[in-house]
């Protein structure tokens, strides 16, 4: 079973994402901000990370930059999932090493389509 780390400061979003991803046969871990996510990754590198941008403590972009510098941190497939939906943000995320990008609001089909895009399902 593939592991997916869901990183979002909203518990509602985490719950929705968890439900969708569990149906897609992922084992889910959760983090509320970038720092927690980084701690999780240092314990176990997940196969996939669904990542919010705006979060307290450490935001998604900073987390991604740190993750890619970690040992083994180039492996997880990172899919941003954020309300930041302008070209500049998307381009920054891709440059920082994001594999895909979901603009909120999202639904099951979008998550499935994007995860398929990056070969996770």
């Amino acid at each position, binding site marked *: 079973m593939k592991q997916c780390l869901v990183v979002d400061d909203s518990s509602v979003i985490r719950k929705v994402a968890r439900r969708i991803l569990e149906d897609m046969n992922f084992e889910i871990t959760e983090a509320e901000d970038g720092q927690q996510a980084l701690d999780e990754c240092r314990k176990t590198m997940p196969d996939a990370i669904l990542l919010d941008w705006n979060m307290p403590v450490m935001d998604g972009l900073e987390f991604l930059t740190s993750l890619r510098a970690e040992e083994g941190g180039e492996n997880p497939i990172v899919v941003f999932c954020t309300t930041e939906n302008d070209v500049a943000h*998307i*381009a920054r995320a891709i440059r920082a090493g994001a594999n895909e990008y979901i603009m909120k609001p999202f639904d099951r089909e979008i998550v499935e389509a994007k995860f398929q895009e990056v070969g996770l399902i």
Partner: protein
Amino acid sequence: MTPSEFEFLKNFLKTRSGLVLSNDKQYLVESRLLPVARSSKLETLSAVIQQLQRGTNRALETEVVEAMTTNESFFFRDKTPFEHFKDTMLPALLESRASRKQIKIWCAAASTGQEPYSLAICLKEDAAKMAGWRTRILGTDLSNEVLEKAKAGLYSQFEVQRGLPIQLLLKYFEQKGEMWQINAGMRAMIEWKKLNLLESFTHLGEFDIIFCRNVLIYFDQATKTEILGRMAKALPDDGYLVLGAAETVVGLTDAFKPVAGKRGLFQKKQAAQATTGSAATPRLAAGGGLGLRR
């Protein structure tokens, strides 16, 4: 469902999703919305529509829109046909049309444009191979309204997130407020025409590839056979026909044969026979370049 309920649903779907529901789609509505009714513990479609009319059940509204638009066109829909396009059809045509340097593609059910634009993107992504070639993509549809949308190339955030990799969105689209518009260069690659497949299309001329996915399902057997027959006439012997993943020509026409191992891809019978024998050599010869990608 009464005619006025159907009328309400048509307007509701049009405002909410842009989906244009013609009057003959009652069966489609039933097959899509009965499961929604059941899951919402509503007895009948009329009950569902009454809920929609009240305008207080947001969750149901979303479910109805989604159930009705699930099969709406999206970018690179089903993936496989576009792989066949890049890996099978284009290489063959680049070889066989080398002296003419022209490829003509017809999307016979272009709908809101995602399929022709996906093909245009494939061609652009392969720009190096296409240098010096003239490509013509024609998109036709029965409905003027969907063609207007196709021509504008303007899609919601929802639509561009289904099937379109984010890099391609960045590369070929511009953000217009809440919407995304495919750029002018891409729009110029496609010509749009209103066409009813039931009517003659000889005036369109000959094509190298016809995409006709998920549209024949709306016609009866005899009409399917008749349309396939006319499509065969619009293709040269080595041309290609692409049908939807669940569609076949078996039992419908002798004009086409499936291409072995390529789901949804068909060639005219004479060509399929001719190439089974001879295709082995050129394919092996070309395999060096293509094989690297596998």
